């Protein structure tokens, strides 16, 4: 990545017709990505998108870079292979709640544990879209779907909670209807050295329309979401008069000016704190819903560990070519 080619979003649009349902948040995510990519300082030929199966996983077809639409749930493992083969690439995993948390749950937790420098965008719509409306691992209790006509009885995962439990070093959450912030998050995820997990609350207009409206609707958003920024006080609300404090082991919403509370009493967001306790509490928070970069703790990446070890082993090895190995040790002559 030496020369800085200046791209525009058009450079990352493929010639394929986009085939998502009209009004789907996937269009927003695609556009945000096409806008973010030119800002990342990466060459187009070094960008790789890997997806699994599901509506979201059609994404790579629409980005003009290298891409693979693979099989259900396996994108994190395929992307790991891509990154290990060539650590210079900018690797993106595109996945959904069914793809990554149900059929691909194992790969999802292990890719986070290993901490390769790649980015995962999890389109969470709390439903199976492509298979037409069954409940997913993030569907809510009681949710009526094709496979839960009387209401869902399986408690959901929270992607952030599961992710941080699996040692995600970077976790961010964003509403599917906030493209500007989303673009910025994608750029931040690429900058971050390690696995970045971004959960997009993505509305499915056909099978689960409005599932996030109570948080994401423009009218309620400032009051129902807290957009976290590193080193900034945890402040939210249309009038910027609400905030978060710690009360014992619980986060509590307070109003500035009430009971003598001032801004200096509020928690200050530290995304870089290695201890995940507060980040997990923020992830679990229902009111306000935490968005933005909740956790960003850099640690040596898997490929960096591998690279260092390879250099060390190579420096101490007496084998340069395979012949050195084949003819080493216990050989004997037949005359």
């Amino acid at each position, binding site marked *: 990545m030496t020369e800085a080619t200046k791209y525009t979003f058009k450079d990352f649009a*493929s010639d*394929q017709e986009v085939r998502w349902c009209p009004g789907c948040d996937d269009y927003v995510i695609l556009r945000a990505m096409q806008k973010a990519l030119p800002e990342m300082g990466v*060459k*187009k*030929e*070094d*960008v*790789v998108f*890997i997806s699994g*199966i599901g509506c979201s996983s059609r994404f*790579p*077809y629409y980005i*003009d*870079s*290298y*891409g*693979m*639409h*693979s*099989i259900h749930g*396996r994108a994190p*493992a*395929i*992307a*790991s*292979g*891509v*990154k*290990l*083969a*060539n650590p*210079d*690439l900018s690797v993106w995993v595109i996945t959904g709640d069914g793809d990554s948390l149900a059929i691909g749950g*194992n*790969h999802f937790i*292990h890719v986070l544990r290993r901490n390769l420098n790649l980015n995962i965008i999890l389109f969470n719509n709390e439903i199976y879209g492509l298979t037409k409306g069954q409940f997913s691992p993030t569907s809510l209790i009681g949710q009526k779907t094709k496979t839960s006509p009387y209401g869902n009885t399986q408690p959901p995962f929270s992607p952030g909670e599961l992710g941080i439990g699996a040692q995600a070093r970077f976790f961010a959450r964003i509403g599917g209807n906030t493209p500007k912030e989303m673009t910025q998050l994608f750029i931040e995820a690429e900058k971050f050295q390690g696995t970045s997990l971004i959960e997009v609350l993505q509305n499915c207009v056909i099978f689960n329309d409005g599932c996030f409206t109570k948080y994401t609707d423009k009218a309620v958003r400032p009051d129902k979401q807290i957009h976290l920024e590193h080193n900034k006080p945890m402040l939210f609300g249309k009038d910027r008069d609400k905030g978060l404090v710690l009360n014992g082991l619980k986060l509590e919403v307070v109003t500035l000016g009430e009971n003598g509370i001032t801004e200096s009493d509020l928690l200050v967001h530290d995304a870089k704190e290695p201890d995940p306790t507060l980040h997990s509490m923020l992830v679990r928070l229902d009111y306000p819903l935490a968005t933005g970069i909740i956790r960003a703790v850099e640690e040596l990446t898997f490929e960096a560990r*591998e690279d260092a*070890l*390879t250099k060390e*082993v*190579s420096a101490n*090895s007496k*084998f*340069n*070519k*395979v*012949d050195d*190995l*084949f*003819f080493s*040790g*216990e*050989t*004997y*002559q*037949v*005359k």
Partner: protein
Amino acid sequence: MATTIKNSQPEILENVVIRFVGDSGDGMQLTGMQFTDTSAMFGNDVATFPNYPSEIRAPQGSLYGVSGFQVHIGSVEISTPGEDLDLLVCMNPAALKTNLSALKAGHTIIIDTDSFTKKNLEKALYASNPLEDGSLNNYRVIEVAMTSLTKVALKDMGLDNKSITRSKNMFALGMVYWMYDRDMNYTLEFFAKKFAKKPIIAEANSKVLKTGFYFAETLELIPNSFSISPSKMPKGTYRIINGNQATAWGFLAAAEKSGLELFLGSYPITPASDILHELVKHKHFGVKAFQAEDEIAGITSSIGASFAGDFAITTTSGPGLALKGEAIGLAMILELPLVIVNVQRGGPSTGLPTKTEQSDLLQAMYGRNGESPLIVIAASTPANCFDWAYEAARLTLEHMTPVLLLTDGYIANGSEPWKIKSIKDMPPITHKQIKGGDPEKWNVYDRDSVTLAREWAIPGTKGFEHRVGGLEKDKTTGNVSYIPENHEYMTNIRAEKVQRVQNSIPDLKADFNDEGDLLIIGWGGTFGSLHSAAKQLSDEDYKVGHAHFNYINPFPKNTAEVFSKFKKIVVCELNNGQLAFILRGKFPNIEFSQYNKVQGLPFGASELTKKFKTLIK
């Protein structure tokens, strides 16, 4: 210290089969390997067959905890680990009970009498002591109180009791070294190296080995009546290699020859894990060996690495192959290079993990959804796993379609001398990666007119950005296509691409006779057994040929022609007739007899010759 010789056995043999048997903690595998290596260094041809339980430490003394290592050495060509034993070295009653039937009548058993306690006899379900009840009268029994003698030898070394008794296997080895006139130096050097950080253990093992050796010599209890002279093998530098190591090294050679980095995505599974164990050592060659979270991640990480330009492989055994099925289909439709190694074991399900079988052939050929043919090849001896791994690499990289390489537990764990190949003597491998050119004149699924292979444009190559996927794709651009005619065209061309591999592989040959009364057919790891049996019949002037398949999909071009020269054909497999099933489909006008065995064990030469003789009549 009762040591008796009940029979004498004055024989000079061209080849000898020895089996070391004991508890799974008795170190029989190590003992056997040491004897093998020493014999190979001496110049004998060798073949080995380890046979051990899947439990790591089964209850001591139990029948199912018996671990054995069989070695066949000779001054003549050795192609199998042998069948009937000339010498059985027995460390406990359970080992005697489970192995005695393999010993030739009148031949020798060395027994550690210290282990023949009431408790151990009960565990081995002996009603009476076989050392006393006359049941061993037909054998030459050498009773040695090995454990006690080992204790005496090491009494002043300050070792704990466990360390002392653990070295009794070296007492047995020392005795066998003396019997067969072997040099102890190789093993003594092995101890010095292996226990460099624990010199006292090296010293103890050396001492016990020598004690066993001198015990046999000084007391003249065993007439040193045979010496196996060096065999006439082609000149060159050799080493002893087992099939899994040879497989791993074949891939190392292919990576270096092709100029690509080797990526292995794998998940531990018996008996394939040793390939992973070997390749993780070789970071200095740029090998990226990735232990994944499961079988599926093993293969899919390899698919990712292949997409990104590495020479990628994945290794597994039967159950793992089942899990990888969907991903193999992906690699196949993407038309990326990938080698899948299946070290077969007894199945179905978990089956017999440590035993051998050839029952994954149909899974290898057809175990995927949709029309998804692969190149399927099989190695047939421990040492030629090297060549077949290399050939798998050549085929996948030149033809841009996955190759499934079959080996099995028998050849994977068996070892034999390998005349070491230098990389410069290996055939070239030309991969299809493009590093530049005019992207405007390039399409993702443009094909070589001869092989039908597409070109391999990898991320990082400017102007060649493209998308691939598991959905059916347009025959040129690779974009998603649901057009009916396009799907049929792509299905056919992917199959045709595999079929055209016929043009780059050698003809099938029948050994011994290329026409006659009976053609013996086999594939993969049964080569040695079938070869021996065919040789024996041929020596007796029977008109038999042996044609062994290494290329299974596609078959060599001249297959039908080879078949047509024989009156009868018998297909021998360690399964219930999977190759026979395929052959009947491909050659419906030819009649195939079968000989099958599914006991988790290799064929024995005598069962084969008996069967073949009845077919010739």
